[in-house]
């Protein structure tokens, strides 16, 4: 092989020495980068957890000593934040229920709409199939602020502004495009021969979708459902516009943002609220990370 020739050539140029030096410098830089990155990304979350279990006076006296007063109070902040307002707490239990209703409603409705839609886009030839894809791309890029004004007015007028269903409809419209994009990639991997076999056995199109494609695409559907859940659970702007008037209808995000400005509620209690808001998302994410990252970046490999 030419390996020895090339090696000899580079040795003459001093290329090998340069390569060794560079490899060493970048090896060190690489370790430093990784350590700093981990601190940079993870520290705020550690800070959140630590503060949620601290005593407020210990925090104010020694803000630099993260572990002072830890354990003296333990989970007291969680109790206070979850206790209903009538019991002297902050009522996050209700917020969790509201967020869950909205997020689950969004997932169910999005999947009901997106599964047939993605099947159609991936399998069937119909007029305008190209423009459908372009439309979805445009939707994905549109600013929420531009939609906020007309939707605020529209839902005020039809009397749905304070209702969960109004918010759910808005969330579905925001997530359905990306859902179809994620799901169609999986539908395309289902071999056509399976569908043709079902068709020969006399199954209609919906029947084929139901009993052939759906079971095969189930992992993708679950991942997509969790992804939609995360978006709906995290959303802030429309929840603020639609639900802010009535405290009993606040979501966890909205509740935390509204109470964060208050001086009477200790920071530690609100930190417990932040943990409660964040934990479900992190758990869901780790449960289906692989499926999610593959679905999200499936366009990247082709450049």
């Amino acid at each position, binding site marked *: 092989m030419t390996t020895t020739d*090339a*090696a000899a050539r*580079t040795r003459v*140029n001093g*290329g090998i020495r340069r390569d060794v030096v*560079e490899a060493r410098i970048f090896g060190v830089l*690489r370790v430093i980068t990784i350590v700093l*990155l981990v601190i940079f*990304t*993870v520290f705020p979350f550690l*800070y*959140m957890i630590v503060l949620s279990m601290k005593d407020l006076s210990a925090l104010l006296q020694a803000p*630099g000593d993260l572990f002072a007063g830890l354990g003296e109070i333990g989970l007291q902040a969680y109790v206070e934040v979850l206790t209903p307002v009538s019991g002297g707490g902050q009522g996050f239990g209700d917020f969790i229920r509201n967020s869950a209703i909205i997020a689950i409603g969004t997932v169910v409705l999005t999947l009901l709409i997106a599964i047939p*839609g993605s*099947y*159609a886009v991936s*399998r*069937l030839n*119909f007029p*305008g199939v190209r423009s459908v*894809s372009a439309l*979805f*791309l445009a*939707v994905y890029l549109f*600013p*929420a*602020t*531009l*939609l*906020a*004004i*007309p939707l605020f*007015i529209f839902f*005020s007028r039809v009397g749905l502004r304070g209702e969960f269903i109004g918010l759910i409809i*808005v969330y579905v*419209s925001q997530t*359905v495009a990306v859902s179809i994009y994620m799901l169609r990639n999986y539908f*395309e991997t289902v071999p056509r021969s399976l569908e*043709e076999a079902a068709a020969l056995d006399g199954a209609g*199109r919906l029947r084929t979708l139901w009993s052939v494609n759906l079971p095969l695409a189930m992992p993708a559907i679950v991942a997509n459902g969790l992804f939609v859940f995360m978006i709906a*659970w*995290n959303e*802030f702007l429309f929840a603020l516009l639609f639900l802010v008037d009535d405290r009993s209808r606040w979501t*966890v*995000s909205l509740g*935390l*943002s509204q109470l*964060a400005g208050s001086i009477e509620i200790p920071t530690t209690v*609100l*930190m417990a609220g*932040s*943990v409660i808001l*964040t934990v479900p*998302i*992190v758990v869901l994410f780790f449960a289906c*990370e692989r499926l999610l990252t593959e679905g999200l970046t499936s*366009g*990247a*490999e082709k*450049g």
Partner: protein
Amino acid sequence: MTQLVKNLPTGPGSDPVRRGGRRPKYRRGGLAAAEARAGLGLIAPTLVIVLVVIVVPILWTVLLSFKELRLIGLGTVNFFTDYSLDNFVEVFTARGFWESLGTTLVYSIGGTVLAVGLGLAAALALRKAFRGRGLIRSLMLLPYIAPVVAATFVWETMLNPQFGIINVWGQDLLGWADPVALLSQRSAPVNILGLTFEIPVALFTVIVFEMWRSFPFAFLFITARLQAIPGSLEEAARVDGATLTQRFRHIIWPQLLPTIMVLAILRLIWTFNNFDDIYLLTGGGAGTEVVSIRVFEYLTARGDVGAAAAQALVLAVVLGVFVAVYLRFAKKEESA
């Protein structure tokens, strides 16, 4: 992005027509027509909700921006008459509008460059396998998936001048004389090599937050692209004596560039439209008032729907210019 429109389905139903050498027509009663009907039927719910909740509202915003309209007077609006450019005159001459547009530009360009840069650094640093890499990769994604309200609240607390950890460390370790109100101070003099600069403190802080929050997205995309580069290419270059930096410059970078360009434009669009992060961190105070915050203020605090719509439209138009310039640029790159 071509992914989105390629792979046009050629189901068994449409084949007989094609084999005949004719363009597929959606003839009544034919298999192709049946397929077209089924396709349209299945996609119809999606189209309806996207049209009703997104397309129509956007068109409505365009109409609203040409009307003199307050929240209180909504019930009596006549949509057939009284169009004027008053809102745009009001918006362009209002105090702080141009400054706000400038802030938006600085925020979105700064945030995009830093996020993509850090994402690239992270992807390269985590390229070679080692024990625990999987876990670190997952941890890198936390800022991106965490709820924005929780993330901003933690940052606010960390940056708090009284008991935030950053100010404690700044005073103890970096020798800051006084606590710095990183989120509510408009600007501060900084002495570099004997020259004093005024840096916009709060704007700088929200840009750093934006970098923290969205670099994982860039990291994810660049990592996926890196994995798709065939190892043989680099191996060949190494055999030919190319050093690490040379291999990066001549092999990896050219392969990454298209992905990075698409990423940058996506991030720019999203950062440009961003409302949540700045609203929650500073409320738009201390020199961080971006246009999307002004839209919200006009809508809720003033109830001036017309002016709010006009500003949202200006935002969308500026964005459209960005995208158009980018597309031209991208095309030139391709053909060159």
